[in-house]
């Protein structure tokens, strides 16, 4: 079992680990014309390095906003976010993000898209190419290196986005409903792929999902956000051993409990 309860004394000690995420009293407001929209309020969350956290909550409660704040794409209106003990003030190689849509550059080949994710690209062409091919192999797309994104299916494109995000060797990978647009079979395959990647690399995963099964299948902890303005309503550790099987009794008992807690 992974360490899931890091709030308290130990948090301070391991707070310097590169994959350790602290969201401290964070609030986020958006100006909408003359109105002010409060998206997040008093949000506290500590994610231990190496955990796989899924965030669930109603549409519009601020899940995407939270991921964007951790990624450094937006700045909190209140509070602060630290990753690996360092204050987040912008984007950085220690964090990667995958969006609901792949966001690949349509004018660049698959290999070039992944290449753009390499932090020190351009120093050694051959080494870059090898790394890109290794990443494409990781997501099972080595045969599509010279394809263009317009020639890929949605699931393939999302795998390229995954490879591109992994190219930066992030310590924290932020996933905003990355499997939301996929069919059931592709989705299951991608879930296994995500698990495999998480387990073979020293990664902290923070994923948003609307799918309870997916949350139970993947995560060490499930974070439930309240309605807007979003704040942490519950943190539910998932004490099931990996690999998980959604057909087992334990799994279904856990889901029953989870549904009960959410109702």
């Amino acid at each position, binding site marked *: 079992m992974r360490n899931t309860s890091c709030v308290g004394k130990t948090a301070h000690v391991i707070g310097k680990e590169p994959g350790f995420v602290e969201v401290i009293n964070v609030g986020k407001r958006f100006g909408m014309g003359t109105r002010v929209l409060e998206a997040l309020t008093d949000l506290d969350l500590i994610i231990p390095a190496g955990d796989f956290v899924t965030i669930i909550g109603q549409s519009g409660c601020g899940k995407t906003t939270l991921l964007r704040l951790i990624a450094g794409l937006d700045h909190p209106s209140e509070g602060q976010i630290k990753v690996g003990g360092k204050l987040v003030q912008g984007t950085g190689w220690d964090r990667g993000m995958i969006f609901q849509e792949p*966001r690949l550059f349509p004018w660049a080949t698959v290999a070039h898209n992944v290449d753009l994710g390499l932090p020190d690209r351009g120093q050694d062409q051959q080494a870059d190419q090898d790394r890109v091919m290794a990443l494409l192999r990781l997501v099972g797309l080595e045969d599509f290196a010279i394809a263009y994104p317009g020639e890929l299916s949605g699931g393939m494109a999302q795998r390229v986005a995954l490879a591109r995000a992994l190219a930066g060797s992030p310590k924290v990978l932020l996933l905003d409903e990355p499997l939301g647009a996929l069919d059931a079979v592709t989705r299951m395959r991608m879930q296994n792929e995500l698990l495999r990647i998480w387990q073979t690399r020293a990664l902290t995963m923070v994923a948003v999902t609307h799918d309870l099964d997916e949350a139970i299948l993947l995560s060490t902890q499930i974070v439930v956000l309240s309605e807007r303005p979003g704040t942490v309503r519950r943190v539910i550790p998932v004490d099931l051993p990996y690999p998980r099987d959604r057909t087992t009794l334990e799994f279904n008992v856990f889901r029953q409990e989870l549904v009960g807690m959410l109702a």
Partner: protein
Amino acid sequence: MDKGGRTQKFQGFLRGIALPLLALICWGLATTQGFGGGILPTPKDVVTAFGRLLATKELQTHIQISLFRIGQGFFLATGLAIPIGILVASFPRFGQTVLPTLEFLRQIPPVAWIPVFILVLGIGEATKLAVIIYAAFFPILVNTILGMTQIDHRFWEVARLLQFSRRETLRELILPAAAPSLIAGLRLGLSNSWRALVAAEMLAAFSGLGYMIMAARSLVRMDEMFIGIAVIGVLGLLFDWGWKVLEKHLLCWQNRSCDR
């Protein structure tokens, strides 16, 4: 391509050349049947004159000079317009400072400046260069700005996540994303400046295709005038065709036609 597609393409080609052929026939009939008042040359006159201009290398020289001018001026205009366009699109305050003036200047046809340019720059190459740059600058500028402002904001976020340097942002995001618009602007700029150059050569030059037409006029060589006009049109078509080829190659990702 399948057989049906090829036949269709051929039919399209036939339709396209029907009008020019018809015009040619009418012209030939009219001039040989005594219409045109003896001023209009016959097709045969024009062909003979064409042969003569080629043999004396006169035509080639004028073409070369015009092409050199357009090449030089277009290169400079591109080098000016694209960076300024990127700056205008990137820095709103810069845009607010320069756009009203540029909008004003854009309304003025480059030909209107020729007398001013002659007075200030003389009748040398500088005047022709200035006219070309003026004519090419605005279409390129406008389309650069358009292309930049149309870049999906979500791609900018990817650029931030991937820690793009300024250079990478330009090379990997701005230029390729704005390429469709950029190419449209370059194409428009070139044809604009080509037309303006001919005008400039007619008013202020001793060489080039425009001058050739004016010189033919003063000698009342109608046949040579027609040759000058035709060559200008054909070269313009070639430019456009070049852009189409370039566009097809550079923007192949848009219609999945990249050959690998």
